[in-house]
C-alpha cells in the first residue's frame, strides 16, 4: 500500500532533481527544489504511516516551515537579481568563473 506513495515520492523527487539540472529559469529551478522538498514530505508521511509513529508527520511540519523560509529567501534573491539583470535565467548569470 505505502509502496505506491514511496514510488510517487521518488518520482516527484527525481522530476524535481531533473528540473533543477535541466531548467534554466531560476524560478523554475527553485520550484523544482520545492517539489523535491514536497516529495520528501510525502515520503515522511508515508513512512510515518508505515512505521506507525507520528514523527514523520511532525517532521513534515518542520519541512514546511523550512520550505517557507526558503521561499522567502529564495524569491527575494531571485527577484533582486531579476531586477538588476532583467533576466532570471541561470545561464545569464555567468560572471563568476575562472
Amino acid at each position, binding site marked *: 500500500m505505502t509502496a505506491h506513495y514511496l514510488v510517487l515520492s521518488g518520482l516527484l523527487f527525481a522530476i524535481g532533481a531533473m528540473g533543477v539540472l535541466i531548467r534554466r529559469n531560476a524560478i523554475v529551478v527553485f520550484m523544482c527544489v520545492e517539489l523535491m522538498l514536497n516529495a520528501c514530505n510525502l515520503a515522511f508521511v508515508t513512512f510515518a504511516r508505515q512505521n506507525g509513529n507520528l514523527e514523520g508527520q511532525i517532521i513534515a*511540519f518542520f519541512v*514546511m*516551515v523550512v520550505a*517557507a523560509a526558503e*521561499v*522567502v529567501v529564495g*524569491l527575494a534573491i531571485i*527577484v533582486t537579481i531579476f531586477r538588476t539583470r532583467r533576466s532570471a535565467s541561470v545561464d545569464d548569470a555567468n560572471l563568476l568563473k575562472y
Partner: protein
Amino acid sequence: MDLYVPILVLAVLAGGFAIFSVAIAPFTGPKRWNRAKLDAYECGIEPTPQPVGGGRFPLKYMVTAMLFIVFDIEIIFLYPWAVSFAPLRGDDGRVIASGLGIFALVEMLLFIVTVLAAYAYVWRRKGLDWD
C-alpha cells in the same frame, strides 16, 4: 480512511454538477459570432491583453504571499499546541492524558514573541502598508 468516503461522495456530486454546468453551456446558448464580443474587456478602450505566461504584477503581492506563509506556518504550530494544551479528560471527567501545562505556555510565549519580533520588523519597514 473511511472518514473521507463521504467527502469523496460529496465531491463527486459537486464536481459532477460543476463539470456538467460548464460542459452544457455551449449547447444551451445561442452562437452569434462578433469580433468585439471576444475581446478582453477594458472599459471600452483597445484592450491590451496580458502576454502569455502572465503579466508582471506588483511585488507587493509577493510580499503578502510570503507573510501569509510565515503566519500560516505559525498557525500550523499553534493548532497542535492548543489541542494538547489542556489535559484530555474522559467522559467521566477523569484525566486520560495530562496537558502540557506551563511548559507549553512558556514555549508558545517564546514562539509568539519571536514571531512578533519579525512582525514588528515587517511593520516598521512598511511591509504591511499598501499605497
